[in-house]
């Protein structure tokens, strides 16, 4: 019999297939991301000035932005509908001068610089009073929504509204805090470290788990052990630890799952009234290989069917030899 599991943060249910669970090997999904270095526009632009430059990382405004801050922000009503122009920033983070596709293969120092760049851009964008949320995320591989580029890059979006899924997480965390006067994520971390069955890897400051009610096979979350609501301030002093655990988990995907497409996104607190979130929210990174497709049932219900229990994927990822 399959199991129904509820995500304690947003209250979303997942159906975990147990008896018919697919073996981890059944998901292996080779990914080609190699493109010719000569035709790589990032390699050609390597000497162009970015809007931000930091230890080999360059930030550019997107050449095809979906957010635009050239006009002042104004909301309007249209009957019962609300509309505004798509105000905000849309930036491309070119992670390295080298023509390397997968962040997993970058040296630790370069990965560290990428996360420091996110932090710095977040601190800049949140000074803008119209910005409500800043998202740093990566699409790697065509199945994850990237173009076939072959050069490691990620994106930053600063938006003037609180996105739906962020609101969900925040309100779930706030409810738990009201009830228990403890951080939900801290509670989750201590339970996971005790039971160990969903822990993939940990170091002094971070732990990587496969969440109890995973939506996707091999979904993983990277959580800082020390409570902090905000990524940009929270990583200070822990940058080396974060870089090493990110490289670790991305290498486990690459070697164990044969270089799959993946997404990661930093799940940060909203940037306005940040003091409200100080105690009840806990920043983290969701890292997800893209191995399955979302169909009508998931779209219609928000219910996910995960074809393999997270305890199995954690065990599989734990055993991947990343030093091979």
């Amino acid at each position, binding site marked *: 019999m399959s*199991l129904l599991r509820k995500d304690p943060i947003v209250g979303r249910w997942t159906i975990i297939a147990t008896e018919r669970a697919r073996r981890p090997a059944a998901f292996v999904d080779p990914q080609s991301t190699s493109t010719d270095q000569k035709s790589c526009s990032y390699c050609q632009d390597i000497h162009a000035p970015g809007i931000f430059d930091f230890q080999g990382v360059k930030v550019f405004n997107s050449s095809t932005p979906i957010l635009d801050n050239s006009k002042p922000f104004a909301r309007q009503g249209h009957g019962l509908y609300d509309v505004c122009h798509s105000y905000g920033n849309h930036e491309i983070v070119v992670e390295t001068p080298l023509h390397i596709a997968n962040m997993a293969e970058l040296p630790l120092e370069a990965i560290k610089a990428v996360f420091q760049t996110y932090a710095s851009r977040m601190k800049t964008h949140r000074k803008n009073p119209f910005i409500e949320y800043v998202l740093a995320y990566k699409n790697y591989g065509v199945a994850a929504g990237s173009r076939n580029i072959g050069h490691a890059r990620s994106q930053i979006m600063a938006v003037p509204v609180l996105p739906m899924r962020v609101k969900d997480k925040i309100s779930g965390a706030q409810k738990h805090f009201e009830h228990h006067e403890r951080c939900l994520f801290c509670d989750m971390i201590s339970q996971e470290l005790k039971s160990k069955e969903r822990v993939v890897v940990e170091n002094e400051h971070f732990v990587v788990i496969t969440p109890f009610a995973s939506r996707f096979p091999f979904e993983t979350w990277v959580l800082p052990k020390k409570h902090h609501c905000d990524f940009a301030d929270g990583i200070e002093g822990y940058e080396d630890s974060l870089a090493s655990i990110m490289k670790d988990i991305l290498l486990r995907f690459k070697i164990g799952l044969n270089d799959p497409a993946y997404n990661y996104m930093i799940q940060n607190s909203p940037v306005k009234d940040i003091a409200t979130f100080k105690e009840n929210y806990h920043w983290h990174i969701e890292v997800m290989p893209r191995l399955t497709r979302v*169909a009508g049932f998931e779209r219609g219900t928000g219910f996910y069917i995960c074809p393999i229990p997270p305890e199995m994927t954690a065990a599989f990822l734990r055993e991947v030899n990343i030093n091979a």
Partner: protein
Amino acid sequence: MPEMRRDPIVGRWVIIDSDHLKGPADFPKEDNTPTRQAICPFCPGREYQTPDEVDAVRPLKSAENTPGWSVRTVPNKFPVLTSDGNLEKEGIGIYDQMTGIGAHEVLIESPDHDKGLTELSKEEMQSVIGQYQGRFRQLAQDSRFKYVVIFKNFGSSAGATVDHTHSQIIALPMVPKTVLEELKGAEHYHQYRGRCVFCDIISQEYQDKERIVAENSSFLAFCPYAPRYAFETWIIPKGHNADFATTDEGSQVHLAQILQDVLKRLKKVLGNPSYNYYLHTAPIGYANAACYHWHIEIIPKLTRSVGFEWGTGLHIVPTFPQDSARFLRDA
């Protein structure tokens, strides 16, 4: 300049990427013609390959699990939820878990392997809708279930694994999250204004006109103002009604007509795209029938969702709904 729009029901913002707009010709085409399968388990004569049918339309009164049906519903051979066993709930520290009790059925819409919903006759399409309601009512009797979802995956990129035309029905022991979000938004709106938000949307759509795709005497098909996907289309009863199970036979005829009409338009404009549709109705035994309004959401699978959308729920849509509606209207 790109535009942000907010859905008035659940409060979800979307971005319409108006600087890089896409029309029907700009999406990759797929070949979704059914391929001949020598061993299709849904074809007549192979009834023994599926679990025993739970319901069927048999115009010639043939015996159960034999040929002669026009629509046939069977339990899914690979169910994600099963109905045998007890619903057991368990807390594991901060986590909640329960046994996977529910039902998972496959509704085979036609005996003809080469036909899709758009090729069915009027009467055949009506049988499909009648069977939707019959199964819905039957499953709603089981006190362990709180919600019944009827949905369809067409084409492999929308998640279909069998070519032979079919829909699926899943009965759940809880109300799913997206429905809860709609209920919450609709109840909030009703509390505030004493009106149904869906009814207000219908009247605004009539005023604006530009997002209307088709209509008949009982139903309206339109592209929502703040869609999540290009060419997303909703079918909604014009009169207030929270519960699909109460739709009368006359309306069922109109529903069959408009659903088939919209699917034909999507097929024509987008070149037989993969799509999903699902029916959102009030939960079983829902008390606030004045607030909610059942409807069908149809979503062609034209783009991939990327990390940004997963992480935020903020969808980026490359087509204005009024343009989607115009293409579909003119088809």
